[in-house]
């Protein structure tokens, strides 16, 4: 019997090896899909993150060196613009102080809960997914810096803050972020002007639109193109009032009881470099639960 096995294996060595490798892969898929395997992924994430940091740093150094001359010129112009902006901001700060005083008084009267996050962790996007099949972002902060699974992620582009997504998995020194344009990322949102609620999810492309569903058809006449979509705060994962996108298309399918809105994200994901992870002010151990 062993002789028979050996002769079969020697005759079909390549096929038997493939069968073995496929079997190992399938077993791994079965196990890891049920989230039994945790440690190897964490180890892989941290080792991968280490090399990705190195690669990003290496190429950034070359890019920065080459671009430094042009940057110097641009910096002069930016400095002049910044001085002008500073003067404007001085004026705005004075106005804001007055508004804050009024706001605090009104909040105290209405007994509103404080929903805006008090603290945030800044991080740099060091890599994207290795394959086009998935759409995660890798950032250079992990559990050592206080990052936790499920944390909401925002970014500033221009003068606007927008929602990026949420933390999907955390390694010791790096983490994976599930961006808004991934179909698995669902955000409870509302139209800022009319307060109509719905769910925003991605369509899988970083330059594509998001889609907002479950907005009642009765709202069709009230909402219009360009209206701002913000997070509603329902579900507790994403804080209330974070900019998500602007309405680009409104459709009312006959087969559906709700509207389907195409939403242009506030954040331009293909040029995303720095992000902020939000720590809810009220929770010491934030956002363990994912929707």
């Amino acid at each position, binding site marked *: 019997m062993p002789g028979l096995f050996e002769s079969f294996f020697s005759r079909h*060595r*390549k096929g038997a*090896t*493939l069968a073995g*490798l*496929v079997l*190992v*892969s*399938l*077993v*791994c*898929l*079965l*196990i*890891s*899909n049920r989230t039994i*395997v945790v440690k*190897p*992924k964490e*180890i*892989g*994430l941290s*080792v*991968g993150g280490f*090399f*990705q940091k190195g*690669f*990003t740093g290496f*190429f950034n150094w070359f890019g920065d060196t080459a671009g430094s001359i042009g940057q110097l010129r641009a910096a002069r112009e930016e400095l002049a613009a910044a001085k002008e902006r500073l003067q404007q901001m001085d004026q705005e700060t004075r106005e804001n102080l007055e508004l804050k005083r009024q706001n605090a008084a009104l909040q105290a009267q209405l007994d509103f809960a404080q929903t805006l996050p008090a603290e945030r962790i800044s991080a740099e996007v*060091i*890599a*994207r*997914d*290795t*394959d*086009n*099949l*998935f*759409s*995660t972002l*890798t950032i250079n902060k992990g559990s050592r810096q206080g990052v936790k699974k499920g944390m909401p992620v925002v970014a500033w582009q221009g003068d606007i803050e927008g929602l990026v997504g949420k933390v*999907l*998995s955390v390694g010791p020194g790096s983490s*994976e972020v599930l961006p808004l344009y*991934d*179909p*698995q990322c669902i955000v409870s949102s509302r139209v800022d002007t009319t307060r109509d609620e719905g769910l925003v999810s*991605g369509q*899988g*492309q*970083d*330059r594509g639109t998001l889609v907002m569903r479950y907005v009642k058809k009765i709202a069709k006449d009230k909402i219009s193109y360009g209206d701002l979509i913000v997070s509603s705060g329902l579900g507790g994962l994403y804080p209330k009032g974070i900019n998500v996108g602007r309405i680009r298309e409104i459709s009312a399918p006959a087969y559906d009881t709700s509207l389907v809105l195409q939403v242009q994200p506030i954040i331009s*994901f*293909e040029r995303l470099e720095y992000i902020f992870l939000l720590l809810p002010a009220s929770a010491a151990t934030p956002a363990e639960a994912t929707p």
Partner: protein
Amino acid sequence: MNRDLRTIITTVIVLVVCILLQSTLLTKIAIRGVRPDLAMLVLIFVSMRRGSMVGQVSGFASGFLEDLMNVSPLGFHSLLRAVIGFLYGMLSGNVFIDPFLMPIILAVVATILKGILSGIVSALFGIAASGFITFTGRIWIEVGYNGVIAPFLFALLNLFRVFKQADKESG
């Protein structure tokens, strides 16, 4: 050291470097977020040159490392790359690779094959791989991108002695 083993080790190292490049530098030249799959192109080149055994083992090992590094479940890329390495290795010695047309055809077929395989595996295991949900759009960009890059990459890889054709297919 056995020549096949040496080739496998070298190939896995090259593939891991390609995977790291794909997640960092190549994002700068992405078209609509899609980057060329350098690792797959290197894998099909090596498989065509060195046969099924080298192709499938290198593909499996590099795919496994890739799975450890990103969000895909363990076994996902190792399965795809092992199968692609095996199938292309079967062609070793049977197909003449000219400098231009064959690399394009091989790359286009491999990318479509990857799309089909990943779609099947995603459906079977309920994996949310957004890239090929509808099998439209992104995959065709990757098909074009890989097809354009393949002739140049194959010409570059031809310079390395370790990837030279085996005299006789091992195994």
